[in-house]
């Protein structure tokens, strides 16, 4: 039996505005509890909301990046429900006239482009946060209450957990590119709820949709979806069905677990927010935003191929995130050989970042210093291998390459006379290798070069060493 998986996502993204959606409190992450609050975001009696223009702008920006329709006239609505982290007993959100509708995110699936359609993107306020004490009490912090969010809802166009992951990666990269959010799932600035069910292709029988919440990483999303996909298929193949419910992903047990079921279907009693009035999104404003749009990943990739003459693969990798692309470009201002820059970034730097689970923004040296190192290698001041060692030091200490080379005495030995002495010593000490070489074993040279490098702690210029060894042996 063949099954088709249907996955839809509902993503909440915290916007990178300086102040909250309806008041001037700071949105800065990690402040002392309850220090970024005011009557408005605390829901004190008598307080009133005033909407943040930048938040609306960021929502429009996201809509433009994903090819959505932007509403000309829109409004906010009240979504009424009781929960301790919801200070007013209602959330100011958008109901029937979201700022953005339609649109799509393009991903690659099985090496082909695929459009994942969006239903809508709207703006709404975030709630406070709760933590649990050991005594089993709940402690509430309202710093996050009122922070602006956009909610992005997709059609169930994703047909595999991998596609869901690609979608999330593309979404994140794009939103970071247009500087609307930093999308850090670990900090909660990107939250994802997933909906999944499975269709038996021959009979058309569908399993009931399962909703999953509180997953805190893209990896978690994939694992949870894989688990559920399997569970739905198994149940259907046994002639059974899933129960429509909300589950959460248990990382430790590697399975999904039913969350406490909510009493009945929620009746949010939506009605237009009477403390706010209609918003107009004029064509002028949209055009202005479009004009000042930063370069999107696709454009940047093409430009890299053109401007820097890089192959498609390199360009794709280097434009993976805006920060990486910026790092490449800043370095390339000072280095002529763009391919060299690309190779070093794609090889040494990205490998290190992956091992340490770091981002390019976290490294301790800047593009200028990186460029300095590359130029030192190009000029022959340090050998290529030494250069890699220097890079390692730079990662660890953040020192400039010039300082590291000086401190550790790593300057490449280019003086032929100096090298000649050492070559002579090595040749004298290794008559067998010399004999081997003379007998046609060309590889013996490598051994001799290695010995010279060892004696010079890698500092001797390898080309010169090679040349001199050949000269001296031939002369013998």
């Amino acid at each position, binding site marked *: 039996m063949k099954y088709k998986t249907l996955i839809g996502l509902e993503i909440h993204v915290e916007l990178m*505005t*300086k*102040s909250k959606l309806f*008041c*001037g*409190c*700071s949105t800065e992450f990690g402040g*002392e*509890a*309850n*220090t*970024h*609050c*005011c*009557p408005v975001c*605390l829901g004190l009696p008598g307080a009133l909301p*005033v*909407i*943040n*223009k*930048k*938040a*609306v702008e960021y929502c429009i920006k996201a809509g433009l990046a994903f090819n959505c329709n932007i509403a000309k006239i829109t409004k906010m609505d009240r979504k009424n429900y*009781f929960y*301790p982290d919801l200070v007013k007993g209602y959330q100011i959100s958008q109901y029937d006239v979201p700022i953005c509708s339609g649109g799509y995110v393009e991903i690659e699936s099985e090496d082909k482009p695929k459009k994942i359609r969006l239903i809508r993107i709207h703006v709404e306020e975030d709630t406070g946060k*709760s*933590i*649990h*004490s050991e005594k*089993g*009490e*709940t*402690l*509430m*912090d*309202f710093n996050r209450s009122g922070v602006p969010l956009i909610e992005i809802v997709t059609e169930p166009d994703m047909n595999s957990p991998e596609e869901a992951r690609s979608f999330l990666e593309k979404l994140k990269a794009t939103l970071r590119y247009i500087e609307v959010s930093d999308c850090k799932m670990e900090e909660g600035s990107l939250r994802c709820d997933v909906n999944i069910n499975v269709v038996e292709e021959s009979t058309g029988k569908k399993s009931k949709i399962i909703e999953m919440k509180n997953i805190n990483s893209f990896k978690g999303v994939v694992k949870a979806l894989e688990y559920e996909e399997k569970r739905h298929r198994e149940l259907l193949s046994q002639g059974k069905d899933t129960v429509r419910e909300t589950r959460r992903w248990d990382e430790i047990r590697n399975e999904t677990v039913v*969350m*406490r079921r909510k009493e009945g279907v929620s*009746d949010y*009693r939506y009605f*237009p927010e*009477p403390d*706010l*009035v*209609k*918003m*107009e999104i004029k064509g002028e404003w949209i055009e202005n935003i479009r004009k000042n749009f930063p370069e999107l990943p696709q454009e940047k990739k093409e430009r890299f191929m053109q401007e820097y003459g890089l192959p498609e693969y390199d360009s794709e990798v280097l434009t993976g995130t805006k920060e990486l692309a910026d790092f490449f470009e800043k370095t390339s201002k000072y280095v002529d050989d763009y391919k060299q820059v690309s190779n070093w970034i794609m090889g040494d730097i990205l490998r290190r970042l992956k091992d340490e689970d770091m981002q390019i923004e976290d490294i301790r040296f800047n593009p200028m210093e990186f460029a300095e190192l590359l130029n030192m290698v190009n000029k022959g001041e340090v050998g290529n291998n030494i250069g890699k060692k220097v890079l390692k030091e730079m990662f660890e200490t953040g020192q400039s390459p010039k300082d590291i080379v000086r401190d550790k005495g790593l300057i490449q030995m280019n003086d032929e006379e100096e090298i000649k002495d050492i070559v002579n010593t090595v040749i004298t000490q290794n008559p067998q290798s010399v004999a081997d070489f003379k007998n046609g074993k060309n590889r013996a040279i490598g051994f001799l070069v290695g010995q010279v490098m060892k004696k010079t702690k890698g500092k001797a210029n390898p080309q010169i060493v090679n040349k001199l060894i050949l000269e001296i042996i031939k002369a013998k």
Partner: protein
Amino acid sequence: MISKEEVKHIAELSRLKFNEEEIEDFTRKFSEVLEYVEKLKEVDTEKAEPMYEVNSLIQLMREDKVKESIPKEDTLLNAPDKEFGYFKLPKVVE
């Protein structure tokens, strides 16, 4: 006349409760009020647009500037229960 069950359901949505004594009297008065507002059904509103706002204003939006928050003491001033600078509650079921 609205039923006691419906009254109980609305009470639940409103996070209110009525004990057995109260619910009789409440249901009666509530029904009277409901009956009174039913009068609106007489009006022909086929072609009418709902008027949610009287002044037809277009929203003036705020610049994204940070304004000083109120001091933590003021935020927690009226907290019925607090600890370590947080509002305190009995455990909330997720």
